[in-house]
């Protein structure tokens, strides 16, 4: 069973085709990585998966359901969550408020205009526990915008996890995190429950090979090759277009 699948997915911007006939299959419970050189169309693909962009052709399937025409928030309620390459947080809210907000929305309580936010003890407790897991226990009530970058990065992932997704898209989770704090993020990612299917979009090969059990390589908007980490590592074509390119840097 595939948790997430694209069928002949295509996106055109005028003459540019950043996503060209992509058939990506992410198995249930997989740790799937999507790699590719700059400009390969990774960001466009993730935007198509999450509903930020509408495809020109093809379909996106979440489990057995066709979600191609659904808006981003509907996809979330069906169990898809994502993180962003560049932090997308609520600067004026605290980590606790942000996480509690996600949990409340997950439980469909977000329209309760007559209730006090934070009066639901279950939600506050769940948010507190989650914040602790992500190393945010000491900054629960600080304004998010005042947090150091590493903490913000943790919160970025915590917000996605708080929605209890079945499928999680991680867009370069370690981007911009200093080397000293990197292991924390990687531990967080590695500790994600196995029931969650993860699609990791990543640039850093150490992270990819340390994490993924399946790798897809995207080049010029097309799925170039897919396989086990070992196969990808040893594939001469991949080395040529991707790993080779890195060696030139």
């Amino acid at each position, binding site marked *: 069973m595939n948790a997430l699948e694209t069928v002949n997915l295509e996106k055109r911007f005028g003459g540019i085709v950043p996503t060209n006939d992509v058939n990506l299959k992410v198995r249930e419970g997989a740790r799937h990585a999507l790699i590719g050189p700059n400009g390969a169309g990774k960001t466009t693909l993730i935007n198509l998966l999450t509903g930020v962009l509408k495809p020109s052709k093809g379909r996106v399937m979440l489990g057995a359901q066709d979600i191609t025409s659904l808006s*981003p928030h509907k996809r*979330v309620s069906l169990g898809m969550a994502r993180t962003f390459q560049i932090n*997308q947080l609520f600067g004026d809210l605290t980590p606790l408020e942000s996480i509690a907000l996600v949990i409340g929305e997950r439980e469909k309580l977000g*329209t309760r205009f007559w*209730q006090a936010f934070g009066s639901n003890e279950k939600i*506050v407790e769940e948010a507190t526990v989650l914040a602790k897991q992500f190393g945010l226990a000491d900054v*629960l009530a600080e304004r998010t915008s005042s947090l150091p970058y590493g903490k913000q990065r943790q919160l970025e992932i915590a917000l*996605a996890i708080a*929605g209890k997704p079945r499928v999680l898209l991680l867009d370069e989770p370690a981007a911009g995190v200093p080397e000293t704090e990197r292991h924390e993020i990687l531990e967080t990612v590695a500790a994600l429950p196995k029931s969650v299917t993860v699609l990791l979009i990543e640039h850093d090969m150490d992270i990819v090979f340390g994490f993924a059990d399946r790798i897809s390589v995207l080049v010029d908007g097309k799925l170039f090759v897919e396989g086990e980490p070992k196969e990808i590592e040893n594939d001469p074509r991949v080395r040529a277009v991707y790993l080779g390119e890195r060696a030139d840097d």
Partner: protein
Amino acid sequence: MKEAAAALKRKRAWHWLEYVFWLAAAASIFLLPSQHALLTQIAIWSLFALSLDLLLGYAGIVSLGHAAYFGFGAYVAALFAINFYGEPVTGLLVAGVAAGLLGLITSLLVLRGTDLTRLMVTLGIALVMYEIANQMSWLTGGADGLTGMPVNPVLGVFPIYFITTNSYVYVLVVLFILLVIAKRIVHSPFGYSLRAIKGNPLRASSIGIPNNLRLIAVYTVAAAYAGVAGALLAQTTPVVSLTYIDFQRSADVLLMLIIGGTGYLYGGIVGSALFLVAQKFIGNVTPQYWEFWIGFALVVIALFARDRGVFSIFERIIAALRKEKAKS
């Protein structure tokens, strides 16, 4: 865990300044009888500015046409009183529902596009409403205004018709009730979702918030509030004219809110009080300089205060004084 819940609770608890403010407002009923006409105006503008704060301060929607709902509420209240029933609270409810409906319908236009588009659309809606009121003079009285509106005693017991002090009490009570409700709304899960949309719409939709539905909801509520404010002015004046719905009113309410500060509900009250008191006194001394001072205040606030309006200027002064004190 306990502290976390307590921290959330503190945010929605009443600040001591709020108690002071409402005690002062209640005291003004007895202590400032000569100013009740002005205070009534302030309270009505406060409610109008509060309704704009729900949009701008909590949902991040800029509007230059909020008088559309204020004016619509006023005309509805007056026409309802003339043709059906002159009890004021009933009139407020009818005006609020009508303005809310207008808000609901027009929100579908306003919420398309980004800030500048929204600004233009709100402006356009208000201009259209103004011209409709002007053209339908058989109904609205057009440029002559709508007169002859009966104002029965409130709930059948409390007369306000041309009784300045009673009018003030009535308006103040309505403002208080609607502020308490607004406070409840902005501190609810719904209110937090609005803040999330304002802060980061992209992320809000990726945690499952249906941004547009929430914005439509708050736009409807804000329009209803504005309609009630308009109805209050109609009932206490009691003439409804095209000035209720003109551009000047939309601009003034935005000015008041910016002066008082957005996003804490009292900004509209502070701003409209400063604006109207200053208008009265500066206007008495040097009427020709009124625009100068309001422009000057706006520049200062835009440069130094931003969100919290005059309050952040006070905060800065207090912080600076404390620093001085710490030094000596």
